[in-house]
């Protein structure tokens, strides 16, 4: 061509950006989207209070803002650490061996919302009820430890420092099917064994990573976690274990066994009454309730979402942005301005992509600003209202800010494509809401696998990017959308709304080239 300068995409982009920024109503809309999104998050955080009430009857009950203690594990992670412990102090090397002859349990018949101090129970042993031998640095909740245990449904396990788990001999414990458990401390190394006949021992595994001090507590423990099999609110449980043939090797500094309810008192983990321990002849009968596991406490005391930004805030901001994205194209069709556009810029695909980039950047920035304000302010309000929040790092905060921004930006791009296909803002707005807002609400309302699939297949999948509640295979918990758990990986989930946006934009580009303007 004659021109010394190549025709650039940059000038199309610049023209489209000028178009957007020169309509005051749209700029006001962007501000409204950011303010509404932020305000709703702040209002919802401000209205969420948590408190503890103490007292034996309504007349002298005292309530105050705050939440029960949540222990931090050796790495600072949130842990559950509530159990019944029979222990002695051990200096240096040593070992403990015990035979567990029975493991049974009771499950509360009332869910945790209605639990009284003396709940009715019925027999039942939950899968992660634990009873075994333990070496722990102290009886303080969150202390480093290693333990070999029989479980209600997962056989013998060697676990240490809350999140590490190695399977031993499978099968349930019963009077006819007993287990010998042995834990040996040699220098820094802790080695776990189990046996079904005391003569042949099986090494389950060993670790040197727990970093226990020279003096440790060594002994027997029992605990039994909340089950969600009977109700979505959860039911507390307890386990009763019988141990005999208990031997401790090494230099023990306490002459008699001591009994400690670890994590008793002001601890978040719900328990079924109180534990107990008795020594009858050579047999220890220990009743325990609680858990030693990673802290999955979404249903217990934690707020959702952990970020402090409310999903409703994101959705309301998104609705405003959907309207702007639809108008950005449809208003040109309505006024036949699209002809002027294509006369000035005959490469229609370029115009569409320039518009998409502009709306992506503008919608993303709007949501990023809203999130960057909502998250710290929301968290601050929630915490000062006595709520417990999962500790999140700067990286998680950044992921939530950028993740929600990208999700909203992709939605706006898809609506832009839709508006180009339909050439009408009303249809594009309705379609945008049906595609990007309704599934979020629907998926969170419909229980079971339908809801999960909605959060996998529809653009609502992108909300998985906000998933910051911890989960663990060592804790049986309904990891559902209602409880703040999303079915996809954080960043991977954005591929789904990305596909929708690409599909809408691709169809729009194809139609634009074929259609008369």
């Amino acid at each position, binding site marked *: *061509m*004659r*021109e*010394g*300068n190549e*025709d*650039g995409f*940059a*000038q*199309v982009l*610049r*023209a*489209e950006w*000028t*178009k957007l920024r*020169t*309509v*005051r*109503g749209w700029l006001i809309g962007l501000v409204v989207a950011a303010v509404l999104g932020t305000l709703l998050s702040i209002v919802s955080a401000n209205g969420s209070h948590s408190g503890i009430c103490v007292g034996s009857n309504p007349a002298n009950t005292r309530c105050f803002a705050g939440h029960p203690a949540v222990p931090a594990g050796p790495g600072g992670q949130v842990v559950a650490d509530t159990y019944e412990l029979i222990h002695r102090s051990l200096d240096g090397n040593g070992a403990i061996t015990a035979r567990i002859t029975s493991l049974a349990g009771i499950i509360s018949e009332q869910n945790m919302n209605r639990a009284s101090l003396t709940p009715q129970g019925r027999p039942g042993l939950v899968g992660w009820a634990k009873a075994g031998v333990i070496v722990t640095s102290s009886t303080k909740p969150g202390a480093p430890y290693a333990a070999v245990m029989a479980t209600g449904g997962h056989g013998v396990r060697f676990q240490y420092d809350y999140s590490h788990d190695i399977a031993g001999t499978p099968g349930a414990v019963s009077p006819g099917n007993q287990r010998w458990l042995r834990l040996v401390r040699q220098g820094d190394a802790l080695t776990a064994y189990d046996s079904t006949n005391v003569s042949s021992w099986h090494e389950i595994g060993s670790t040197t990573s727990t970093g226990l001090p020279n003096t440790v507590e060594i002994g027997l423990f029992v605990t039994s976690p909340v089950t969600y099999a009977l109700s979505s609110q959860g039911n507390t449980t307890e386990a009763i274990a019988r141990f005999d043939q208990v031997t401790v090797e090494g230099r023990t500094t306490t002459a008699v066994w001591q009994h400690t309810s670890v994590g008793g008192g002001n601890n978040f983990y719900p328990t079924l009454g109180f534990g107990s321990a008795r020594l009858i002849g050579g047999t220890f009968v220990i009743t325990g309730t609680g858990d030693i596991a990673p802290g999955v406490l979404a249903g217990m005391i934690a707020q959702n979402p952990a970020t402090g930004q409310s999903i409703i805030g994101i959705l309301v901001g998104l609705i405003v942005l959907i309207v702007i994205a639809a108008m950005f194209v449809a*208003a*040109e069709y309505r*006024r*036949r*301005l699209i*002809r*002027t556009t*294509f*006369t*000035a*810029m*005959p*490469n229609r695909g370029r115009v569409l992509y320039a518009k998409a980039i502009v709306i992506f950047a503008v919608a993303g920035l709007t949501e990023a600003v809203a999130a960057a304000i909502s998250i710290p302010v929301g968290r601050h309000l929630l915490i000062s209202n006595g709520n417990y929040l999962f500790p999140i790092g700067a990286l998680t905060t950044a992921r939530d800010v950028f993740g929600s921004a990208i999700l909203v930006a992709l939605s706006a791009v898809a609506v832009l494509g839709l508006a180009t296909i339909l050439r009408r803002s009303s249809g594009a707005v309705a379609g945008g809401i049906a595609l990007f807002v309704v599934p979020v609400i629907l998926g969170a309302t419909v229980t079971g696998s339908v809801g999960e699939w909605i959060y996998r297949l529809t653009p609502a999948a992108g909300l998985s990017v906000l998933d910051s509640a911890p989960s663990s295979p060592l804790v049986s918990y309904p990891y559902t959308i209602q409880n703040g758990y999303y079915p996809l990986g954080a960043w991977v989930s954005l591929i789904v709304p990305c596909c929708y946006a690409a599909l809408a934009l691709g169809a729009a580009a194809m139609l634009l080239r074929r259609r*008369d*303007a």
Partner: protein
Amino acid sequence: MSAGDTELTPTESYNDAMTDATIEMTGVRKRYGETVALDGMSFSVQPGRVTGFIGPNGAGKSTAMRVILGLDAPNEGTALVGGQPYRSLHRPLTHVGALLDADALQPSRSGRNHLLWMAQSQRISAGRVDEVIDMVGLTGAAKRKAGGYSLGMRQRLGIAAAMLGDPPIVMMDEPFNGIDPEGIIWMRGLLRSLAAEGRAILISSHLMSELEDVVDHVVVVGRGKVLADATIEELVARASHDTVTVRTDTPAEAVTAIQAAGGTAAITSTDCVEVAGLQPRLVVEILSAGRVSFSEVTSQRANLEDVYLQLTAGEAEFQAHSDARRRR
């Protein structure tokens, strides 16, 4: 936009492209569903003159313009500007300036910002935007929302947009629509001066009277076809249906006398005879020689309007019939 992008001054591009100041339409057919909008339309627009594009509403003028601008794709035939399809033009507004629809504005965007995005899309400087605003006399209103403009102001804004790239080809669809008399005079002056600069100008109208004083060349269209493509002089001469009206108390005698002299005449009312093919002076001589009394002899020269009406008469009849059919 990076600082490295240079904004070309309009003058450079103008001189560059002036050699290509033509529009050529060849055998263009365009259907919208069952409706045939363009039925093998062919014509060309040459530089240095104003070409009128005239025809009744629905004749295909706007469609032809959209096809020229690459907005609508023809089913058959080609439309070229400066020898190229519009869609292949780089910085197209520096080649063709078009005003299709003065109402095609985002009402909440100011007139100046409307021109600004167009300028940016062509890498034309913001200085040129102010220049064209000044040229059309919108300086005072440029920063107001375009939604508040009168139709005349919107037309001026549309003309400013068409002139933004200082293009060698200017195309306007019904530019006189809604403009006040003062604006019409201004517009005629503008169109003449643009043509005098060597540009090719194509303006459409459904009224010949609007164009008569400004166009050099006329393309008359009807039902998607070109009915006439000629200069004003050719068109008037081709029609040459000059008539002479004779007012007389004895029309029958007047007809006999004229027919005897070799002319054609017909009684049009009780005291009027219309004579064709004879000069008024000759008619007076014949009547005087035949002793036919008359009170008045007037000459009626065919004007462009008559030619236009004759050309498009069949078209109008057809439309009336089809309208009648539809009503039933």
